[in-house]
């Protein structure tokens, strides 16, 4: 005797089972009691005691946090201010201990928010310090960040101070996505734009400072995505953001020879697809009597009812069309205005990135940033080089090949629009460009002949309805399966769709809404093989005189 009795593994297992059974009994007993008391309306300190036992181990038990709130609300009315102060102190302490157990419990943070929101004299400085402590342990804990934002808002902490806080975190460790994100929220707050101006812009000196900061970050640790993402966001900060204009414009028609004022015409505006949604293109029908053939010209003025914007264009006698147009290059549609200083900074960044790319050929962020910098500097000059970089990037990051193809298509379309500026272009050649997707179609409003052949398009999308002047559309040798966008094109006469993937005649349904369509070439599509397709097509599109299958 006197020897230590060592339990066998069987006994150990049994002991463990008993322990858990015991634990369960206590847990269930406590829970039961809490619910019973709540049911009976006995919202007192004993409930606090019981719930703290359970929540301490399992802070995700949401209903118990509700219970605690009910008790605290009850006690608020019953207790004296001194007693309440003690209670609050205890509650805050309890919350902190829960957070130490699980710093990512929604319930705990929410409860702390709730509590602080009710205090007559909350100590926000202490809360900020708490956030700083928890972020030291885990600087990505978004619960803590959200709580910090709540505290900053409540305590009216100036955005500049919060920005300084992110500074301190970033200096310590560049790989700090949460801090960069917070900066992206704080900077626009610190530099608000006038309501009339485009939102989201940053003053140039601020922008250049941020570029310097973020450059340090991604050159120090090129493998961390945070800085690269933030850089991309910065590059877009000066650009024009199309805004939703909630006001509907009215149309003013001036028709008299002596230029006397006309009175506004009541017209209804609609989108080409007929859906009442934000759109780049709006149509209205003029009353039949509004145009007078005798007059040498008509002047149309569109006025937004607030009176702050107006556009005017002239229709000459005998002409079918007239237009007024802002230049894409003037408005810097696709990229930002570059001052000499910014241009220099971006140019040197581009050079540095190219050097980095030679050292780290597998780094996809670097490659993408090179492309974005070239677009920001001079999209047309760098077009060829950009396409080469896309090749390299696709090889380095094949999983994102489809995304990159679409991005590449977007950039090519932007370049085409920019090139259109240098000649009044109504015929646009976009064939053989390996396009996978179409965008900026609202820029092609005046195009009459469009060549999209020999690309990799899967669809002619609804946005195509913007091409109100389109007469001839060549879309052969793609992989088109859907023609949703070929609807209500009032001038479309000829449509070439050879060698695509149109499966059934039904796919051509949208074309029935194009009143002037006379020639349709469908050779080399699967639907041509189907039985009775010619008849079906004739039925579907009775006014199309020539359908080639």
């Amino acid at each position, binding site marked *: 005797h006197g020897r230590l009795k060592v339990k066998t593994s069987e006994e150990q297992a049994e002991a463990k089972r008993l322990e858990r059974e015991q634990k369960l009994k206590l847990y269930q007993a406590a829970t039961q009691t809490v619910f019973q008391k709540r049911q009976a309306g006995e919202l007192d300190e004993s409930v606090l005691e019981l719930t703290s036992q359970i929540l301490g181990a399992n802070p995700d038990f*949401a*209903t118990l946090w509700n219970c605690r709130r009910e008790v605290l609300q009850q006690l608020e009315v019953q207790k004296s201010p001194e007693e309440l102060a003690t209670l609050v102190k205890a509650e805050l302490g309890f919350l902190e201990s829960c957070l130490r157990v699980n710093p990512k419990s929604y319930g705990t943070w929410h409860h702390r928010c709730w509590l602080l929101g009710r205090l007559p004299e909350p100590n926000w400085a202490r809360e900020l310090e708490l956030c700083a402590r928890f972020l030291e342990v885990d600087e990505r804990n978004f619960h803590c960040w959200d709580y910090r934002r709540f505290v900053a808002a409540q305590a009216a902490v100036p955005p500049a101070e919060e920005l300084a806080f992110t500074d301190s975190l970033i200096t310590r460790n560049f790989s700090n996505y949460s801090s960069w994100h917070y900066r992206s929220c704080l900077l626009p707050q610190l530099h608000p734009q006038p309501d009339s101006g485009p939102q989201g812009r940053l003053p140039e000196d601020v922008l250049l400072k941020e570029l310097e900061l973020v450059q340090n970050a991604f050159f120090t640790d090129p493998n961390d995505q945070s800085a690269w993402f933030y850089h991309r966001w910065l590059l877009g900060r000066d650009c024009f953001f199309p805004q939703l204009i909630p006001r509907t414009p009215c149309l003013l028609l001036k028709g008299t020879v002596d230029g006397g004022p006309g009175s506004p015409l009541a017209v209804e505006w609609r989108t080409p697809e007929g859906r009442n949604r934000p759109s780049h293109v709006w149509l209205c029908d003029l009353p039949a009597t509004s145009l007078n053939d005798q007059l040498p010209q008509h002047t149309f003025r569109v006025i937004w009812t607030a009176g702050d914007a107006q556009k005017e264009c002239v229709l000459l006698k005998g002409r079918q069309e007239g237009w007024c147009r802002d230049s894409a290059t003037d408005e810097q549609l696709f990229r930002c205005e570059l001052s000499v200083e910014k241009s220099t900074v971006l140019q040197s960044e581009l050079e540095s990135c190219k050097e980095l790319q030679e050292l780290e050929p597998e780094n996809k962020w670097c490659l993408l940033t090179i492309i974005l910098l070239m677009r920001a500097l001079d999209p047309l000059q760098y077009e060829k080089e950009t396409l080469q970089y896309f090749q390299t990037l696709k090889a380095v990051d094949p999983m994102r090949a489809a995304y990159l193809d679409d991005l590449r298509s977007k950039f090519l379309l932007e370049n085409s629009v920019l090139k259109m500026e240098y000649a009044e272009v109504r015929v646009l050649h976009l064939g053989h460009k390996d396009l996978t997707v179409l965008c900026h179609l609202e820029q092609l409003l005046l195009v009459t002949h469009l060549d999209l052949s020999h690309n990799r398009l899967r669809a002619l999308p609804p946005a195509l309805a913007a091409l109100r002047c389109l007469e001839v559309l060549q879309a052969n040798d793609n992989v088109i399966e859907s023609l949703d966008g070929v609807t209500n094109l009032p001038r479309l006469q000829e449509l070439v769709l050879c060698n695509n993937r149109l499966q059934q005649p039904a796919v051509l349904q949208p074309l029935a809404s194009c009143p002037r369509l006379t020639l349709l070439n469908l050779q080399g599509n699967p639907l041509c093989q189907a039985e009775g397709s010619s008849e079906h097509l004739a039925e579907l599109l009775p006014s199309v005189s020539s359908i080639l299958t």
Partner: protein
Amino acid sequence: FVFLILSWGTWQKDVIIQSDAPDTLLLEKQGNYIVSYGSKKDDYEYCVSEYLRMSVIYWDLIGQLHSMNREEILTCIQSCQHECGGISVSIGRGPHLLYTLSAVQILSMILWNMFRVYRNKMALLLEILGGKLIRDSLFVQWQLWLYWGSWMLLMWKRQLNLSCMNFDGGFGCRPGSESHAGQDSCLLLVSCTK
């Protein structure tokens, strides 16, 4: 609008999946595990994880739709529904957005017809929240508004609120919150439906 989803991933933290790793979702095994888990009503972990019960049933059903006892589940959901229309995670608990969602998902999977009965009460809940009326008895997690809201949109097709969109094109829990894959995936799914 342009949607840059956080699809780039955290480059250096990628896990290399071995070539012999399973590539099919083992639905049956998952279902069996959860069903057997459910039979351990005396198990400590089972009880402690009661705060997840409704969601567990939902995930369970994905693997076991054909063999589930519909009546039992419907009764369970019914007994979890509260006056305000919200549904709690299990019997006796408070109504909760997340578990209302799980219940809605379960119902839509089981019986679309019966779902209409619950839908009227859900509509009431939606109105209450839409009017920003927060009741303490309803544990409203504003952090998860977007998650819940986006799924409800799937059912009721309302306007999306883009105030939670961030610098990287992703979405956070609330305006100002960092992008979160859970929110992103929900909104992506919603935006895919017309």
